[in-house]
């Protein structure tokens, strides 16, 4: 099921069909699938944003939020910036999108404590994306790994969003 979907989408993206608004529904369903199954396809998501750019009346804030949150899960890659460049100028007024942008901003600045703080304040937003927290933790591990030779255990647990016990050890590895 998921595989066929992926193939269909890949087929759409290869041709000029990627600009056809009639395909928007399929692509949007694909975004929701990614949120649910913890998979990721940047190119398809950018195609959705592009369709919104070309057809502003079809803009869907909810899907856009999912795309942006998914982009956060792919740090340290700059997917979020790529998405941001394609957002409509009018989107700036959307409250949730502004919040996600703020999350991205502090994540880019590696202010992880602040980031987790924010995330915990809006649990329903991020929990829609399966595997969201773990993906971010992976990014934290990446940055800490390239910066520190040794680091205090409590400090690290903090940066990872206050996890302990077994979970902590799976990440430390």
């Amino acid at each position, binding site marked *: 099921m998921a595989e066929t979907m992926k193939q269909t989408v890949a087929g759409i993206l290869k*041709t*000029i069909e990627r*600009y056809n608004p009639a395909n928007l529904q399929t692509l949007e369903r694909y975004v929701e699938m990614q949120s649910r199954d913890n998979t990721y396809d*940047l*190119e398809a998501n*950018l195609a959705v944003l*592009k369709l919104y*750019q*070309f*057809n*502003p009346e079809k803009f869907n804030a909810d899907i856009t939020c999912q795309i942006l949150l998914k982009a956060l899960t792919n740090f*340290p*890659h*700059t997917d979020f*910036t*790529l998405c*941001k*460049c*394609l*957002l409509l*100028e009018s989107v700036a007024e959307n409250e949730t999108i502004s919040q996600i942008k703020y999350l991205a*901003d502090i994540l*880019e*600045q*590696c*202010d*992880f*404590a602040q980031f987790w703080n924010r995330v915990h304040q809006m649990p329903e937003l991020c929990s829609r994306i399966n595997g969201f927290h773990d993906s971010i933790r992976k990014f934290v591990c990446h*940055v*800490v790994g*390239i*910066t*520190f*030779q*040794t*680091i205090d255990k409590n400090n690290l647990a903090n940066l990872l969003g206050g996890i302990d016990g077994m979970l902590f050890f799976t990440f430390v590895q």
Partner: protein
Amino acid sequence: MYSSDDYNEGGYESYGDYEPHTGDPQYDLEYDRSYYKMPDMVKKFLVYFRNMINEGVTYEILNLYEITFPKLTEQYFENTPWPDENEVAPIVDNDHVFMILYKELYYRDIYARVPGGPKPEQRFTSFYNYCDLFNYILSAETPVPLELPDQWLWELVDEFVYQFQSFAQYRSRTSKLSPAEIEALNTENKAWNVLCILNVLHSLVDKSNIKRQLEVYAAGGDPDSVAGEFGRHSLYKMLGYFSLVGLLRLHSLLGDYYQAIKVLENIELHKKSQYSHVPACQISTSYYVGFAYMMMRRYADAIRTLSSALLYMQRTKQLFSTRSYQNDQINKQTEQMYNLLAICLVLHPQCVDESIQQVLREKNYHEKMFKMQYGDLGEFESCFTFACPKFLSPCPPPIEPGSNYGRDAVKHQTQVFMDEVRQQKMLPTIRSYLKLYTTLPLAKLAAFMSAARGGERDAAREHAALAIHLLCFKHKMKNVVWTQGPSGLDGKFQSGSELDFYIDNDMIHIADTKVAHRYGDFFIRKLLKFEELNRKLHHIKI
């Protein structure tokens, strides 16, 4: 006769040298209207031009296109457009294809030269002329018997995208439009539609099989083996290739950097190939690729792309000096590339070729870079707005008088870039301290940082803030860098900047990886030059 009404505003005074003028502009205007005859030279040129195109003599066509046409323009049409189609058609036996090509040049000339730019209806007719041309080329069942020099084909595709851009800008200047113009724009919504442009470029790419050809070529095979009936023809092949670059430009204008880079898959930018002999195309490609990389925070890739293009231009400068009409654009793009390079080098200090370094030192880039290093956000912004492409809103709303959305696209992209710069604001300061040491205790650096800022001290908070900045430093300086493979999007994380560090307990260990400049090459070059000079001097007999 001359349909003079179209040209009333052109402000033409002189048609050249065949009859003395009275000096009274009003009288001369009347005179020109009623007695205007196309100069014989121009007539001859048109007939000859057409014959050469029909016979497919590309080198002669190139000559006529690149040299004779601009020369005649200067001589006979200094302040006016070329004669319009009704006048030219009888001279060339109503040759359908030639007339399309002629009109392409005719409108392009208006866009480039006529004061005040093209009129709205000229924008539309130019668009429909492009439609005719591409229909002729694309809907044929067998490849059309037409051969044009690559230089022309490149400028044709580039101009097509340019005129789209120009139309979008014109449309967005709502406050300057008259009600009649707005009415015309709102009813005529098919012309210069973004989907149309995409469709044309994609069709040219598909028809020529250029992607497959490039793939085979990159693998060392013979592209003709997969080109198919159309793709084997030079016209289709080159149009396909240039359309890829056209797409790169179009995607960049719309802020879609991912597609911009992706569309160039299988094109190896830094290698000479059979496709890369049109300098303007090479330069334009490097500019847009470099820009896209910069926006993706792939500074090492951006620096590599930009500096290799600039180096190429330094070495081939003489090539460009002859053709004046291409020069303005190339010069402007060069300056934009130096600005982009300056930005990238501030954000990601790295060694570049000595001769590029020299230009950056000599021209006023030095001051700009200095300001940016000290966190002058205004300087970043002005460098960026100067160097960025002229972004467009793809889907402008119906025009209402007074609304002004035109600048939004530029503002939006600038905003995204400035967000990135703000996130990195502390890094140059940290770098400047780290440069001085090989090991530095965290607490000491924290003290430096707060001393620089002034105000009250709070050791714990300073420490935490510093840790965040250091993490950010490492995160931002580790870029995806292309190493190999067909796609410019691929790459590995590397820290290519000249300063690196790691933290062990409370100590920062710093490695300055700055490579010493290669003075050797420089001296050898100068020595050879000197010897050459010496030899010449000895040969001079007085």
